[in-house]
Structure formats: C-alpha cells, structure tokens
C-alpha cells in the first residue's frame, strides 16, 4: 500500500472545521468562481479537501495515494497566477481526484494491481496534462478494481472502497474510488475511465454524475489500457454542470492517440446550463428493463420518464434487439484485447519482479511474476481472451463477437433515427453488500448490463441520480445515451432531470448521504 503523505501544517492540527465543512460541500463551479474572484484561495480549498480525506478516508478508502504537499504547492502556484491577473482555466484552483489508471508523473500508478507496485510513470497522461494545464489541483489517485476489471472495487489488490451511503456496500466499479471520493465530499471532481460502465455504474450506485464521452472524444494516451477499443476517460462529479465543465477541460483531439477524433468538442457546458428538453425525442429502450431489475430501480426510472414528459420531452419506445447479446459479446472482446494489453507486465522493465534468484530463466521470472502479481479476475480474463484469440477459435469467438458488435451499433443507429437520445436504468440493481458477489463472476458482470452497449458502439452515455430505491434507501441512476459526438444531449437531459428533481427534493440527493463518523 502506497504511503499517504500530509503536509506539516496539516489542518487537522490547525482546526478550521466549520469553514472547511462548508467548502467541501460546494460545487466545483461555485468553488472555481470564488477562487477566481479571490473570495477563497485554492490553497484553502485544497487544504479543506485534504483534511476531509484525512478524516474519512480511513473508512471510505477512496484513495490509493494522496500527495498533499504537491497539491498545496500546485494550489499556491495557481493562487499566485490568479493574483497576478494571468489567464487561468474555467476550473482553476479546484481539486480533482484521478483514478489510478492514468499516468501521473512521479506519482505511483498501480491500476489497483500488485504487479505495478513501485512504478513511477515518467510522463503524464493527456487527461492529466490537461487538468494541470487548466490549473486544476490533483489531490491523488483513487482506488479501482485491478486493471479496471470489476464492478465493485473489491478486485483492488489494495483492499475495497466503501460506499459512503452505506459503508458495508460497494461503491461500484471499477472506478469506485472516484465515485466514493465525490459522495464522501473528499473531492469535488474526479476522473474515471469507462470500458463497460466503470464511470456510470459507480456514479449510479453512489448518487453522483458520471459521463462516458463518445469514443475518441477524450484521449486514451496515458490511460493504462484494459480494452483499447472500449476504454474511454470521462468526468465524474456531483452536479451535471461540474461534470460538463470537467468534460470540457479534458476533451478534444490528441495527436498522441490515433483513435482520438479530430472534431470540435460538443458544447456540453451550454447544454448543462440549459437543461431544456422541450420537443426532445427520448427513446425508452425496451430491452433494458423488466425482469431482473430491482423494483425501486424500475420505479424511479418510470417516475423520471414521466418527469421528462412533463418537462416537454416526447417519449417513445424503441427496441434494440441485439442488446441482449451485449454482455457475452463484451466478455469476448474485452478479454481478448486485455490478454494482449496486459502482456507487457512481465517483470522485465518495471513493477514487480518475483522469482529472479539468479538461476531462473527470463521466461520463468515472467511466469512467476504474473502468477504472483495478478489477481484472480485478471487471470480469468487473460485466460478467456487468450483462448478466444487462439488459432482455430478466433472465428467462433472473437470474430463472431465483432460481428455482433456491428449489429449492436446498427441497433443504435436505427434507434437514433427514432429518438434524439435513449434512456434506461444505469444499473439493474442498487449497491450490493461487499463480499456478496465476489465468488460469482456472472452475477458481478450482470451489473454492467445497461452500460456495455454504449462501449461496444462507442456512443456517448452518462448516468444521473434520480432518487433512492424505496426498498433499501440506496441511490438509483438513470442512463442517457446519445449518438456519437452528441455528448451535449446527454448533459441536456441530465441537467433537466437534476433541476426538476432538486426542486422536488428541496436539495441535492447527496445532502442525504449519512454523516461519516469523523474521529475526534
């Protein structure tokens, strides 16, 4: 486990509790405005969040690494920039947490795996570079399922993350650290990566906002690959506008990523500010609902559909018949790509090395290290993928899966001919108990049933909180799917829901997160 460092003048010693408690509950947009107007300093805001992390992360375990000194130094530099009247980014001075799957130079980057322990990237991921370039303050790296394989963060080699709504439950995965850091008010913003729902499913089960941009909309350079054709970095936040502002900072063409799209970034911020769904055609996907969905999930979803209709949207029902094959398709393509992507972790150049006793061959050291350094789920998928790509099986598995993938994309194309956006529950179920599904991979995979189709087709998709399930009092998410490069529509619908629901609830859903016990 990576040591967590705190500055000398740690605020837990200097005590400014009340003031800090107010800071950490504010939105990123508000914090940015106040920092820019010099009502608050970035150092103050950063310190408040570091203090919160120190207080509650022992219970939540959202972070694998926090570098308070570096964060405060960055914050001080940004404050100086603002004081000098230099131009700064729209989220200047606001802290952000980064999933531990992105290279951040000089900070340990483990991907939740033992095999990368000790590796310090010598370079920044493009997303990280853009955060720093836009004057955000990186607090640290958040926990995740090992190499982003999982839906609960239980597959982290460094222990699970706990859901702030109920610490006995999972915060989703693989980006459970990022979502939990938001719900626990440890960070106002976080970066995730979404391969089959790793941004959206954690957002759904923690009552936060998470968006998977259009594939190619954000750069994968420096994102340690799980499945290259599915992975996509994206924003995580507590409000739709905050997510849009973060999206705007990290998105856009990157010449270092060949799959990055060279097109203007859709105006997601304007869409998030507008929230106008009048006349928007919203398609409810028949195949994503019904049997196997929790009653509370279905109930909140139906209420949301009615709400959108009342806001002037036109609701239609659309069928995507091949979505029922999305899960098996995904579990052939993903393991195939990851079996190759993870081959580089072989003890030869960096990270863990086991069994190098001076007599073992390079091949033996590779095998021993991989045996010791990878967890069970990673091994399972490497074995599956190696098999699926093997000579004689390729056509039947990988080849066939790619064909079905095309059919799923065509389902989307047809559906987007009938509706401007598609909606569904984000997940079939709410947050489950830690340990409940660890021995049942198929039950675990089932959590990504609704989110996987958008990864296979590459379109934009986001999850927004729409209430608590009556039966367990846990958050429910609604998924909005938009055509490729129409990410703004995702935010438009999300903002409409947020505005109406906040009004209905008399505040944010996250106001209802139970107080975490703060050590005296």
């Amino acid at each position, binding site marked *: 486990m990576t040591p967590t460092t705190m500055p000398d003048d740690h605020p837990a010693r200097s005590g400014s509790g009340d003031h800090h408690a107010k800071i950490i509950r504010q939105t990123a947009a508000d914090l940015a405005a106040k920092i820019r107007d010099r009502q608050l300093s970035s150092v103050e805001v950063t310190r408040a969040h570091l203090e919160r992390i120190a207080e509650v992360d022992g219970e939540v375990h959202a972070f694998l690494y926090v570098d308070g000194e570096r964060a405060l130094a960055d914050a001080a530099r940004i404050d100086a920039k603002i004081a000098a009247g230099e131009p700064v980014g729209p989220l200047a001075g606001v802290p952000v947490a980064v999933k531990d799957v992105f290279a951040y130079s000089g900070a340990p980057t483990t991907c939740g795996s033992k095999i990368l322990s000790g590796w310090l990237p010598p370079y920044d991921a493009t997303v990280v570079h853009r955060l720093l370039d836009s004057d955000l303050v990186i607090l640290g790296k958040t926990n995740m399922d090992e190499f982003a394989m999982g839906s609960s963060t239980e597959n982290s080699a460094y222990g699970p993350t706990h859901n702030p709504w109920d610490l006995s439950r999972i915060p989703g995965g693989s980006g459970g650290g990022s979502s939990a850091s938001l719900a626990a008010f440890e960070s106002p913003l976080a970066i995730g990566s979404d391969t089959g729902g790793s941004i959206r499913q954690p957002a759904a089960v923690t009552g936060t906002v998470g968006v998977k941009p259009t594939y190619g909309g954000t750069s994968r350079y420096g994102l340690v690959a799980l499945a290259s054709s599915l992975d996509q970095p994206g924003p995580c936040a507590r409000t739709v506008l905050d997510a849009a502002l973060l999206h705007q900072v990290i998105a856009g063409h990157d010449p270092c990523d060949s799959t990055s799209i060279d097109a203007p970034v859709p105006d997601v911020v304007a869409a998030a500010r507008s929230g106008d769904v009048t006349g928007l055609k919203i398609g409810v996907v028949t195949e994503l609902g019904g049997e196997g969905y929790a009653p509370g999930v279905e109930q909140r979803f139906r209420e949301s559909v009615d709400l959108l209709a009342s806001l002037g949207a036109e609701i239609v029902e659309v069928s995507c018949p091949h979505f029922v094959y999305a899960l098996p398709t995904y579990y052939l393509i993903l393991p195939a790509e990851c079996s190759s992507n993870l081959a580089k972790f072989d003890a030869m150049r960096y990270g863990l090395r086991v069994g190098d006793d001076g007599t073992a061959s*390079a091949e033996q050291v590779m095998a021993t290290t991989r045996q010791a350094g990878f967890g069970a789920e990673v091994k399972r998928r490497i074995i599956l993928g190696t098999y699926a790509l093997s000579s004689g099986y390729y056509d039947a598995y990988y080849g066939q899966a790619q064909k079905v993938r095309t059919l799923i994309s065509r389902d989307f194309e047809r559906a987007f001919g009938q509706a401007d956006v598609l909606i569904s529950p984000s997940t079939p179920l709410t947050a489950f108990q830690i340990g409940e599904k660890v021995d049942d991979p198929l039950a675990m995979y089932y959590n990504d049933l609704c989110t996987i189709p958008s990864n296979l087709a590459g379109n934009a998709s986001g999850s927004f909180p729409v209430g608590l399930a009556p039966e367990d009092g846990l958050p429910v998410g609604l998924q909005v799917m938009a055509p490729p490069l129409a990410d703004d529509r995702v935010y438009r619908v999300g903002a409409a829901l947020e505005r109406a629901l906040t009004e209905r609830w008399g505040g944010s859903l996250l106001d209802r997160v139970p107080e975490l016990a703060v050590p005296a």
Partner: protein
Amino acid sequence: MTAVLQYEDAMAAFDPVLGLEVHVELNTASKMFCGCSTAFGAEPNTQVCAVCLGLPGALPVVNAKAVESAIRIGLALNCRVAEWCRFARKNYFYPDMPKNYQISQYDEPICYDGWTEVVLDGETYRIGIERAHMEEDTGKSLHVGGATGRIHGADYSLLDYNRAGVPLIEIVTKPIEGTGAKAPQVARAYVAMLRDLVRALGVSDVRMEQGSLRCDANVSLRPLGTTAYGTRTETKNVNSLRSVERAVRYEITRQAAVLAGGGRVIQETRHWHEDSGTTTAGRSKEMAEDYRYFPEPDLVPIAPSRAWVSELRGTLPEPPAERLRRVSAEWGFSDLELRDVVNAGAVNVIEATVAAGASPQSARKWWLSEIARRANEAGVDLEDVRITPRQVAEIQALVDSGTINDRLARQVFDGVIAGEGSPAEVVAARKLAVVSDEGALSTAVDAAIAANPDVADKIRSGKVQAAGALIGAVMKDLRGQADASRVRELILQRLG
C-alpha cells in the same frame, strides 16, 4: 556431423522450391510509432520513449513517411496497394519486445500480389511477390555467458531498445520454382536486386552488416518430376548475399541427404552459422507458437488515397531487371562480368562513373579491383569508400591522356581516399606525373642501353621482345613515372 549430399547428386534427384522473406529497415528519421531517432550505433537505450518502451498507457501513432516508403516498395515490386488495411498484433513473450506483442500486419498487408524479375547469367527469372507489409522492429538482446550466445544457457542478458520500433518492411515471395540447380544463385540475385531497388528508392540504407536488410530463406525439396511441395525449413537471419547463397545451398544438400536416406524433413526454423557454413535446428514449427493475431485496436485503419498512390508511382526508379538489361547492352560486359558487378553492388557506381566520362571497362576495373579491395579491408560498402565516381573517372582520364599510368593510378587512389584532394591535386602533390620530358627520357634510355650491352645487342639483331628488360630498367630509373610505350619507341629508335 550432419550428413549432406554432394550438390550435384542432390540436384540429380530433387527439385528445390524457395521462399524468401526479406526485412528491410527503413531510413525514416523517426521510428514507426513514435518520434525517437532511428540512427544506428547510439549508446544503448538512449533513443527510447514511453511509446517504444511500451510503458503502461503509451499509444502508437503511425509514421506517415513509413507508409509512403512501404507503398513505394510495393509499387516497385508491381504489387497492388490495399485501399484499406490495418495493423495487427502478433502476440508472443520475449524480453526484447517491450509490449510482448509486435505491431505488424497480418491478413491485410498494405501491398500484395506483385512480381519482380532477377537477371542471372543473362537469364531472367520472374519472382512472384506475395506481400509487403509494415511492422516494427524489436530491441536487441545480448546474452552474456553460456556457450551458444543464445538466451538458453546464458548467465544474464542485456537489452537495448534503441532498435525497438524502427520501421520494417517485410517482403515475402511466392514459392520460387523452376530454378533447378541455380536456386542458390537466384536467391542471392533476388536479395541483391532488392537491395539495389530499395537503395534506388532511397527508403533504406540497406546495410546488411548492420542488419538493415535481413533475409529468412525457406527451402523445400521435392523429387524431380513431382509437383507437390515438400516440407520446408526456414533458415533465419541470413545477413549477407554470400550467406544467402551458401545457406540455400547447404539446406538443399542437407535436406537431400535426409530424404535420400528415407528420412523426413522436419518443419522448423534453423539457425545459420556463418563460420561453418551450416544450419542447425531451432524452434520446431510443429509445436508452433500461436501468435493470436488480431487487429491492432490502438490504431485506425490506413486507407491510402488512389491519388496519393499514383503520385508515388511517379517517383519510382527504373526497375532493376530492366536497368540491368539496359546497362548490360550499353556496357557490353560478359554475363560473368555483369554477375560480378551485380554481386559487388557496383551497378550504381559504375553507371555514375561512366556518366562522368570513363569507359565501362575501366570503370568496372577500378571499382571491382582497387576500390573493392579497399572496401573489403575496411569492411564497408563500395559506396562508402571515400572516393566518388567522378574522381574515378578523372583518374581514368589522367591515364587515358598519358599523364599517369595504371601503376601510378593506384597511388592516386591512395591519395584521394586519404583525403589529399582531387586526382589532379594528388598527382601534383605526390609528383606522380609520368616523365614526358624527352631529354630526361633519352638520358634514361641511353643509360639503360649502356648498362645492358648484351640486351642491346639482342635487340639490334632483331630480338625485339628483349626490349622489355630495357623498358623495365628505364621505368625503375624513373620510379615508374614514364609512359612505357614511349620508352619502347625510344629504345627501338636507337637500336632499330
């Protein structure tokens, strides 16, 4: 000791079929998928970055210049250029490959279905080209300790990733049949032709000794008069023209002995040993690694526009076989002379020397004797000897004008190559011009006659061939700096 048949006996019973895979390292300034330099010979691991080290998170971006070079090579080999193609990952674990997969091309090569010709001893052989595809090179391993220099049995290994990611074009022939006993020479002539072609295209330095052109030779035998292919072996990393010929020849004799003894050729890769001129078994292909190729998801497909392809078609040099036929007619060399020129890689320099005014025979003479000897001694290519075709032509012009003779010319070569200036400057500085002062010549001739009265008597009595001894004496006196025919004239004038 592996049994081999005499080559002639092998040819009496078997018909060889070849397949040649040639890897050409491109001379792009940067690597295939990143901006690192491709320069040869740098300190280990100084030309590396996150991408070519395969660090977690790094992504490849295709070098457009490498694609252009691939297309030009394909067009020069009369290939079809794919309208759409992809890279693929070839998966296997080896420490010199940072990602444990190589980005290559599999079932969608950029160039395919072409042909070329090689000319050997006046005969033209048509060779089908299966494909020419792009891929990245691996790093280099240095296995320290152990007997074989291979990874098994080594104490430890050192890895240099400077070469990792250097762009390669792999050119694969279709089965080459019908060459009969000339198979080894055809193989050599094909690789020589590729080397000249690639050099003419300007896409590679093609220095075989630096590994920028590497050949894998597939050889199989079938009984004479049959058509089904026999089991093949693949001899890896045959890295000189001479070795290509020797390795093919050796494999033919080895396989012939196996088959003649009632045995079965094992499908395997074999290692070539330059020193012993033999091959030994490597990895058996019957337990072949499964490379689990699949389309590279980190890269987008390549779709060269037809306009670009036809623009590139306009940049091609003259096809090597056509060029050989042309120069052979122009120069009037015998088949044997031409083969020596081709094998020495001297076509370019001779052509340039002829263009600078020298006769073809004199150009051939200098490049294949004086300069080839110096190139061999220095272990470099002809073109790397520090003398230009123009300077060679100038030296020959000095010979033709009688300013120097062939013997003095050798000293001029020494001077020019040593950087002492132009041929004329070297002649002046080293005082190499022949003595054309009649007075000095006459004095030397008279002295020689006086010193050799018996020889002089023989000449006077009609034995003109005895003049050689007197000419030799005069030349010795004048330290070789005389025109021998003029000396002969003067002697005969006096004694005739």
